[in-house]
């Protein structure tokens, strides 16, 4: 859009006052493909530690390690709630017998006892 049409659009917004919507010069909708390449985990990874393999196998399918590493310090009860939510609410196929190792890892590596 040119500077001229932008200024016309802004004038319309100002003129309308009570209504937040403004009639505007026609802007054509987009056509064609837009393609991007996302950077994946951008080099981020879980800290090493006991249980990290279970965490890598179960958590990284849906999200990067930063979902964990940027959290405030969470208790074991809070990490348990998070893992349970991933399993029961978001449908992550985490085996029941993998849950304790995951929770213990998260608490040791990113939480508090």
């Amino acid at each position, binding site marked *: *859009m040119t500077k001229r*049409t*932008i200024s016309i*659009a*802004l004038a*319309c*917004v*100002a003129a309308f006052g009570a*209504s*937040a*919507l*403004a*009639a*505007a010069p*026609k*802007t*054509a*909708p*987009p*056509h*064609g*493909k*837009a*393609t*991007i*390449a*996302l*950077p*994946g*985990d*951008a080099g*981020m990874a879980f800290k090493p530690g006991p249980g990290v393999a279970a965490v890598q196998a179960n958590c990284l*399918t*849906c*999200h*990067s390690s*930063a*979902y964990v*590493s*940027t*959290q*405030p*310090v*969470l208790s074991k009860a*809070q990490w348990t709630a*998070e893992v349970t939510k991933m399993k029961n*609410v*978001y*449908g*992550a*196929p985490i085996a029941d017998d993998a849950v304790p190792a995951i929770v213990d890892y998260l608490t040791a590596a990113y939480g508090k006892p």
Partner: protein
Amino acid sequence: MELGRRRFLAGTGAAFAAGALPARALADAVQLPFANGERPLMAFPQKRPLIVLTPRPPQLETPFALFDQGVYTPNDAFFVRWHLPGIPQEVDATAHRIAVTGEVNQSLSLSLDDLAKLPQVEVTAVNQCSGNSRALQAPRVPGGQWDNGAMGNARWTGVRLRDVLDRAGLKPTAKQVQFRGLDHGVFPATPDFRKSLDVDVARGDDVIVAYAMNGAPLPVLNGYPVRLVVPGWYSTYWVKMLSAITVLDHADDNFWMKTAYRIPDTPDNSVVPGSTGFATIPINRMRVRSFVTSLADGAKLGAGPVELRGIAFDGGSGIKRVEISTDNGTTWRDAALEQDYGKYSFRRWHASFNAARGTAYTLAVRATANDGATQQAAPGWNPSGYLRNAIETYKATVA
């Protein structure tokens, strides 16, 4: 003026003058003002370097100094937040269709060219994440640990949702309108991201299906080729890559409405930390907020006149008044409001004060909306860390 500790760009030692903010990121990391607040800066596709909360799915925060540059947030600086891992990386606008189904007289499959036959409208509106500033709530809660940059203001172009709904024709049984986009989970059991609005909200004058943002196509990460724009409401409802509009004969009970994005149904939507058993409602309109953009917390000022600039916005009544304080809220005086871009837009303001040599100031800013709502020094708490609108303060010292 040196950049204060609060917004220190790690590894640069950079200084910038008020208003002379970096056009490009100066460093590859930032330290946000809370524990565990180290974040990388990275340029994602169609984006300048932004603060990376999580790279996958992408959650990107706008460096706050950017908000000093103008009333509109540039598309390449606009924050990004996705929920599910399946984000299309190739989207064909020409082939894209929006299915309109459910409690309608005639189901539709609309191309963007079909949409463009409806009257075109524009609205300038703030898009703010429900959890913006979550990391600043105390005690802290799990969730996306945003500072204040999960928001932006843009001029959105498209057509009224009401006109789309009227083309299909709502049946008398219509109760809510549900929206979904092209993103998806990787497991069948993962709930699709779907959000719903009551019919009267969906049919509001200003709710639009937008195919342009600041006069350009939407960046893919902001929802190319088309997204819902619900001015005044938190951005959870602004469904990206909009592909389906389903008119429901009941209140939506899908996970993203019934369980997620809920706030306490209490006075001020607040509860005592640790509370349980209270009723909840879906999050809705935004709270009034205001910020200083011309300096950061921890700023070092020269003695003499200091110009303060900033922004304010609310959930759609518009900004009536902005006040500043140089004594941590003990006394207040009016700031000057700048051009009005509409009741859903950032409203820029400015004020000045005389900085006395050898003085430590705690600056504060407070907005009042046309509906009378204002900001408190210590607003309430909620378990999801939504709705933050505390009075923001900024320490500044004068050498």
